[in-house]
């Protein structure tokens, strides 16, 4: 019984330590957040592509390495949301996709949703990977997020390919990875960072 008090203290400390770690991760002192959506598993940061009809159901494909998932876009435009923990300055998007050369593909975040303004950019072809079964094209795009105000804590992305439905072609997506970058935490910017972090809370939205 003499160990009971120690066990009790440990049991109380475990959730407190977990909570401290969660606060640390959410506050993100490094100023770097990477979100990775592979269509196989739901990601808490990235929503599914929508609306249904413009994108087909997620397909599971068996490969030598295991299982991969993919989703086809048949009508333009398509959206997905990223739930951010705070405001970031820059985003680097990396996309695994399959399409022919003539089909246009532009992706970008919303600058102002009420005015329907988007920062659309062409996906710059980077390489073709053989890691997946059929070989995916990998492309990147970079975005400046300084002047973008997310809708609450949601940053909406638009995928555009004008005339996709008329051409009866499709774009296949295999994976989306986005790196969000901002200045790391320092003594000088602590209160500014804290203010920004609080701005993304529901209390702030309720009060404003």
């Amino acid at each position: 019984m003499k160990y009971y008090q120690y066990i009790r203290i440990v049991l109380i400390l475990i959730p407190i330590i977990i909570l401290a770690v969660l606060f640390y991760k959410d506050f993100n002192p490094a100023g770097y957040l990477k979100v990775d959506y592979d269509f196989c598993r739901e990601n808490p940061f990235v929503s599914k592509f929508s609306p249904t009809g413009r994108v087909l159901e997620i397909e599971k494909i068996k490969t030598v390495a295991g299982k991969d998932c993919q989703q086809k876009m048949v009508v333009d435009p398509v959206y997905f949301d990223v739930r951010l923990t705070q405001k970031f300055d820059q985003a680097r998007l990396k996309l695994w996709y399959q399409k022919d050369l003539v089909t246009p593909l532009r992706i970008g975040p919303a600058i102002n949703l009420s005015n329907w303004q988007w920062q659309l950019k062409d996906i710059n072809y980077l390489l073709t990977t053989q890691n997946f079964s059929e070989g995916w094209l990998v492309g990147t795009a970079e975005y400046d997020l300084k002047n973008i105000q997310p809708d609450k804590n949601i940053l909406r992305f638009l995928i555009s390919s004008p005339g996709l439905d008329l051409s009866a072609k499709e774009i296949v997506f295999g994976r989306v990875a986005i790196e969000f970058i901002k200045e790391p935490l320092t003594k000088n910017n602590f209160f500014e960072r804290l203010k920004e972090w609080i701005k993304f809370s529901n209390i702030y939205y309720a009060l404003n």
Partner: protein
Amino acid sequence: MHLIKKITNDIFYISLITYAVYFMLELLKEGLISNYFDLNLLLIFIIIFAILTIIFYDKKRTS
């Protein structure tokens, strides 16, 4: 056996309070908990320890 009963009881109450606190924090700042930790897993954990606590409690009463 008495120690196990007490620890089971403690785990149940601590996990219940943890769930309530985490749930409230999630409401205040969406994603703070759910981006990294599935609260449903904690709920399953609570249910298991609630059942164990009830079993031990009943045994105690009948004896």
